[in-house]
């Protein structure tokens, strides 16, 4: 199996996802199956082929790098689960 339980736990940690034991078992199997399936790409010869990251055939325009002043703090904070004055509030980090 490509992805063992420890690998699943490691990538879950990297993804900031908390998984219970049942989920770890299930996902280890599912992720291994998916990775086995995508590995058929190894059949394809990609020597001298560039990776494609932008499919656009048109020239993408560049905007002028100009400063723009906006006062959006009220909008930016409008959806905060918890806020105090002009700040987002999170659990205490420093004791």
């Amino acid at each position: 199996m490509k992805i063992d339980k420890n690998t699943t736990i490691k990538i879950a940690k990297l993804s900031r996802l908390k998984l219970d034991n049942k989920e770890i078992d299930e996902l280890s199997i599912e992720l291994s199956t998916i990775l086995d399936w995508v590995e058929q790409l190894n059949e394809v010869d990609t020597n001298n082929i560039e990776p494609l990251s932008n499919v656009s055939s048109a020239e993408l325009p560049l905007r002028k790098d100009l400063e723009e002043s906006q006062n959006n703090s009220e909008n930016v904070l409008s959806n905060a689960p918890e806020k105090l004055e002009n700040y987002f509030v999170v659990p205490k980090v420093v004791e």
Partner: protein
Amino acid sequence: MEISSIHNSIDLIKEKKISILELNQYFISKIKKNKNLNAFIHFDEENIYQQIKSLENSKTNNRLYGMPIAIKDLFCTRNMPTTAGSKILSKFNPPYESFVTNQLINQGSILIGKTNLDEFAMGSSTTTSFFGNTINPKSNNISLVPGGSSGGSAAAVSANLCLGATGTDTGGSIRQPASFCGVIGIKPTYGLCSRWGIIAFASSLDQAGIFANNVKDTAILIKEIAGYDKNDSTSVNIKIPDYYKNLNKDLNGKTIGIPIEYKIPGISDEINNMWEKAIKVFEKGGAKIKEISLPHTKYALPVYYIIAPAEASSNLARYDGVRYGFRSKNDSSLDEMYELTRSEGFGKEVKRRILIGTYVLSAGYYEAYYIKAQKVRNLISKDFKNAFEQCDFIVTPSTPSSAFPIGEKEDDPISMYINDIFTVPASLAGIPGISIPFGKTKDNLPLGLQILSNHFTEQTILDAAYYLESIHE
């Protein structure tokens, strides 16, 4: 009187045969009668009446004046909540309007509600939504999926709950549900419509598009949502033609490519017969038929299921419970708050894709998976480039099957992924595609034909669909 088209409704309003209030009341009452379909996540009558009032006061007379359009709940809307079908955004009220919905509002549309979708647009059945599944209006005895991820929009147009709807398509999320629900769905060229304000899934693939009941309406709507936007660096600055005025069903001199690799073993006879019949219909219209080869077709799905989750894992990192959306109540530290918020806020398929994406981008695997997939993506894109030197457009089935029952394929991710086998290659190449209803199964379920053409030649596929529609009527 049945009202089901934009181009007719525009005339009815101009000739004062119906008011925009009456037009919208017609659809409001239909939405209320069809609540069981669960096509909408957000529907607020008061809000609609306010939009009508301010439109009546504005004295504008723009092209979509008073037209009720449903919006996939992936587009940020200032006056309606936006959830992406996820618990993690269940309390999100965007402080800004997406480019596409802003265009529709400027043209006078009424945004009639926000439609259901697979969570973060990840799915082919609209069953992964936090707000329950949508039912395909074309279901017979058993409830069928509407397809996905834009299943709510496809169902809303199919049940005539609005005159058109927006969708987004990352690997088939417009064309596949259009096919399942018996409506038209178009995904334009990557870059034609701005992604500004569309909740990001896989940024190199995501593209906005349209569902409608007929080709004329599709052509009208797609023009209005297209256009350059400085807020999206991949938005392309080209002149958008008036697709509707230019519609032309003459196929003489056109060559149609039939890709041999799309003849896949295990696809039902009903699908293959529909495809063959469509080819004959095109031939009758004067088009030349040519077999073409897209040799890397079979690698499109594996490429997609590396690139899309990789980009998703990066895009979805922003949901941390700090700035917007849901936050877990059970935290004791900052790290735990992140982990619990994301674990409680995301559904199973989204978690699966975040994990796959994180794995293929992680140190030691990046080259082997992500870069490899991007290289094969280049080969797939080159296949289409070569093909369009030999033909004007390509015709294939939209989906490998008709709509399936709700609950099927849930436990097997790969069998669900295979729904997108005919739509994903075009997404990877960034080319435009349309699905148009053509034929039925023996159980009277709709089937869809997919038409693909080269970058920024939306007119070509709209013309071909227009011809097909005229024959069908």
